[in-house]
């Protein structure tokens, strides 16, 4: 059949990109020495989710039979867990309008009452990283419009992701231009001198106020010191040369079809983690762009997700969805190939989450979200089912944040950590 032929071509293209791209790094000289190896976090979200029966195995536990989509990355089955029955409850409901709650569990419009608004797990993790890496987090997207933003900050504001591959590459590996560098440094210097000035003010104030105010002034002095430290760290990043990689982006990277671009985002993500340029990445997949993204499909992605159980629709849709899980698997391949100073692989040292805020696009349901977590040092290799509607997906995020090194037992609407997901 024609579809099958095209299908194969698309897959070859996608896979081919990734194979060629497996990074050759000359990092040896610069690899961070002896320091404890940090945990990383990558959250990949698709706008339309996955067809549930193609994603969720029927059996729970370690001996699940991999359905069609899981087949695509089955080589890692010992290294990931598939979750079912998790969602954000009533808070994540809104059809397409609920998808943006994927990583927070809170709709933007309902975020006002929360201390950190609808902050997403990646941004929470980024606060933990602070200035320890060049970028506390990075947001990538393959689409230019209509997507659902994955990352939201503590003010409830969406963080626009970057589509431009060349820009991402430049941010990671190209030297900052002298003008921009001096501008950034000047801004840091300015803040540093302001801190000097206000410290003098604070000392003056210290003489005027009473004992009961000491604690408040101490808070102020401590704040000055912690900010100084952060500014010093940030300035240091400006002076530190960016890591050198032998990886090259195709010159027309940003004009390529979706199927050819996707592996490139994953390559950059893997390289960013490996070079410790950042420890937190979100990657969003939404529209396919022109030429049906290079897929052998005859209808729009969105239209296909409303398949109304028409078999030919599901068949075309599964071409796109298989591609997503396949690419995620190839990304895991890349991570597994990198050995880190603690003797583990980058796959072990990275929590890679694949999922969506959409549970079933055909019925606009935000229940039972597709969620797959790989790596991160958890005891994997299972399909973990929770009773639907009983456990917030935010509990998984608490477990992840703890694993990330954060001393927290809650995240947004969580009720605890996730039962059944243990550290290996």
């Amino acid at each position, binding site marked *: 059949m024609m579809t099958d032929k095209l299908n194969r071509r698309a897959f070859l293209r996608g896979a081919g990109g990734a194979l060629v791209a497996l990074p050759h790094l000359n990092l040896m000289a610069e690899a961070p020495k002896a320091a404890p190896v940090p945990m990383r976090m990558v959250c990949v979200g698709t706008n339309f989710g996955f067809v549930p029966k193609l994603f969720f195995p029927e059996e729970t536990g370690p001996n699940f039979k991999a359905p069609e989509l899981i087949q695509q990355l089955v080589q890692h089955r010992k290294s990931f867990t598939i979750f079912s029955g998790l969602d954000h409850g*009533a808070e994540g409901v809104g059809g397409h*309008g609920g998808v943006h709650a994927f990583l927070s569990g809170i709709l*933007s*419009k*309902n*975020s*006002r*009452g*929360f201390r950190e*608004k609808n902050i997403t797990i990646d941004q929470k993790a980024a606060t933990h990283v602070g200035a320890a890496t060049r970028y506390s987090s990075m947001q990538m997207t393959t689409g230019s419009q*209509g997507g*659902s*933003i994955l990352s939201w*900050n*503590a*003010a*409830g*504001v*969406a963080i*626009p992701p970057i589509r431009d591959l060349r820009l991402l590459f430049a941010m990671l590996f190209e030297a900052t231009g002298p003008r921009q560098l001096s501008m950034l440094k000047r801004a840091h210097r*300015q*803040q540093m*001198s*302001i*801190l*000097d*000035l*206000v410290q*003098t*003010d*604070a000392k*003056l*104030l210290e003489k*005027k*106020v*009473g004992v*009961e*105010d000491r*604690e*408040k*002034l101490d*808070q*102020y002095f*401590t*704040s*000055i*010191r*912690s*900010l*100084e*430290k*952060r500014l010093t760290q940030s300035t240091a990043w400006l002076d530190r040369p960016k890591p050198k990689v032998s990886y090259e982006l195709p010159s027309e990277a940003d004009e390529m079809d979706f199927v050819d671009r996707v592996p490139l985002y994953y390559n950059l993500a893997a390289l960013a983690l490996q070079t410790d340029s950042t420890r937190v990445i979100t990657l969003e997949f939404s529209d396919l762009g022109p030429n049906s993204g290079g897929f052998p499909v005859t*209808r729009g992605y969105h*239209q296909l997700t409303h*398949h*109304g159980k*028409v*078999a*030919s*629709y599901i068949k075309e849709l599964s071409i796109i969805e298989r591609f997503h899980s396949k690419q995620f698997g190839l990304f895991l391949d890349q991570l597994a190939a990198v050995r880190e100073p603690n003797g583990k692989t980058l796959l072990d040292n990275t929590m890679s989450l694949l999922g969506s805020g959409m549970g079933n696009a055909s019925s606009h349901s935000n229940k039972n979200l597709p969620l797959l977590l790989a790596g991160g040092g958890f005891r994997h290799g299972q399909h973990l089912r929770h009773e639907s509607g009983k456990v917030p997906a935010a509990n998984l995020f608490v477990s992840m944040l703890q694993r990330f090194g954060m001393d927290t037992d809650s995240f947004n609407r969580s009720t605890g950590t996730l039962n059944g997901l243990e550290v290996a």
Partner: protein
Amino acid sequence: MSLSRFIWVMTALWMSAPAGMGAELPPSVPVFVKRYCIECHDADSEKGDRNFKPFLSNPGKATHNEILKEMLDQLNLGEMPPRKKNIARPPDGERRQMVADLGRYLSAVESDKAPSTSVMRRLTRHEYNYTMRDLLGVDTMAADATRLFPEDSRSHGFPNYGPAQALSGHQLQLYMQAARTYLDRALVFGQERPEEQQWTFKPQDLIHTKKNVGTVRYRVISSDGKHLDIGHGQPVDSGPTYPKTFAIRGVPKDGRYRIRVKATAVGRKHPYAAELFRADLSHSLQLGLWHVPGIAFLKKRTSEGRVFVRAFDLADNNPKTYEATVWMPAGSIPFIHWINGIGSTKRPLRTIVERYHPEARRKSQTAVDKLKEAGLPVPKDALVQKVWISDLYKGPRVRVFEMALEGPLHEQWPPRGHQNIAGRETDAAKLNIEKTLVAFAAKAFRRPVKKEEIAHHIRFVQDRVDSGTPSAEALKQGLTAILSSPRFLFIEEGDARRGVRLDDFQLATRLSYALWCSTPDERLLRLAAEGRLLHGPTLRAETERLLKDPRAEAFVHHFTDAWLRLDKIGSMPPGNKQFPAYYRNRLESAMKTETHLFVAHALRLNRPIPEFLNARHSFLNGALARHYGVPDVVGEDFRLVNLPNSARRGGLPGHASILTATANGVETSPVTRGVWVLESLLGTPPSPPPPDVPPIEPDTRGAVTIREQLAKHRHVTACADCHAKIDPWGFALEYFDPIGGLRTHYPGANGRGKGRLIDASSQLPSGEHIRNEADLRRLLATRKAQLTRNLTLKLLLHATGRVPTLRDHEAVNRITKQSLNGNNGFRNLLHAVIASELFKRR
């Protein structure tokens, strides 16, 4: 001890302890311990690792207080002594007496430890913004530079309690960035007065497509291009209508702009079945006006950062021009929307096409494919659109003819904020750095500043200029530093060791932050400099002057929100499905406005305090009146309304704002509402529940009423004592649903239909029976002394940033008595608080 517990203790003590009492352990405590505890908890057995011997050998020692707290919890829980053979248990009366004695003692201990003077406090986020508005003349509403600030932590509603405030390096950086943003906006060095421009947008400028046929689902343009119909309405989330090309750049400069929209409502009376539309079309269609700081905020679901200007009631079939003037930062884009629209039009349109306009019917591609796959015949022209529904549709829409924009309108140049700092000079190089900085620092620090005190700031700016930094830039950096200084960010009230009286400038600051939540103006600072402010008649006259100023609106908003805990609204938003009107009619902001206007009214007219409970009036707009079932109030604007008996409203406990703030968005909780009455009205908050008591699991299926659940609660010893005091107050408000709508029944199973009949009767611990909210209000209104004392304490906390302690007992009683002996008016009470010794001391 947690902070909330501490404040509870402080407030609870007012009602129980005599003045001037220090902490003395009641002799009953060691007697009780000897009688019931020591047998197991002695040095030999040390059951549960607790040994009370050291306590008994020296009961008064402060080091035992931790163990006493544990005892209190255990007694409250009824866990100790254990129910076992051969173990003596105290009779209930004795146990209760012990709980009361221990509680009072531990409270007094805490009060002894409480700071007896104010603690230096930080400006809250809203105070920071109001202060920037007054210092720099910037509009902080339209482009709020403090959006990333962490939320202020509140202690029992009040965000200005110094000991509870936190600060971090991150926040310090945000302070620097916000100051710089506002300074960049305020100062116009080197800029000419910008020319006023005019833009007119025709329907085709407001829509992407040129197509004049379609589904009317969002927008459709008429075939003659003369008007545009907006066919749907979802409160803010999606579908804004805005000038498309203009939006790429937005307005060219910061400034005030006049926005005009020519529009009308059409189709409010339509030939279709009424139930097809999810809107109440008996009221006017409304046009909402917003603006956003950039095009990115127009994307779907980016509602955060959009600034709502207002809603206009549209006339039917009568195009009129609606107008508003707003301040917008450069790059802003105004947009409009049908704000009380019918929500998604997808479903009604489908039915309307089927039922009324079958000629516009067409099969979807998916439906055709499905037929094909099933081997069923596909009608030949199934996919052909013969007539568009937009040409046939007679349903409700907002029709827009034109949008126009004019500005930036500058009343003066340089603008006020610039003049505050640099006078009329727009060439920064010509300014005297020293004079400029000293004058600004005095305003920012709210007191005279000698040049030696800020010599380092002056030197810094001078050095920058000398090393080639442009004067304007150098000056801005210096000003940023002043606005990041602890002398600006903190309200400093001196050293209690050198005396507890505030000086004139500190008093001026207290007064302006109490009434304006902002920095003292020139006149206040001048009076302070002349040493006249502390003089009684001057202080009273100034209080009056400040209250009459529009800036006093801040007092009404922020005091009211803290006192009545309206800050809680929005933390548990009602469900959209369960309460669609809450969103469609913007009830949340309407209900807050009602309470603010009500309190403002009481303040303006010096109404007696019991009127907060038994008023027969309130302030309503059309949406809220509909919510309350009050007839004949239509439109967006609020007005004074005399409430009919049938509405069962009047007084604060009937305000939807409070009824919403004390529910969780899904169901009501008599406990939360009871606590609210005790805390916000009577000032006798119940003690927090002992540890490890599971909360009540609300059962929404209606099989078990909340009353039955609470009855169970009251039968558990651990809960009984407190809940008997809390729940009855809350039961009386059960006729009001989670968003304050009147109801006669609980919702039925699965939230549908009618469930059980409401029963709002209860018996207070004092023995009085109350049947409903009317009895509750009547009863509360008679408790004048308690209401007045509570309000006094709340006003003091707001005005001084300090929790009054036992030592202040007499002063508080004096204010309360003075009010009760006079006309018990709200404005007089506020005056009495400000005239009191407590307001004038640290």
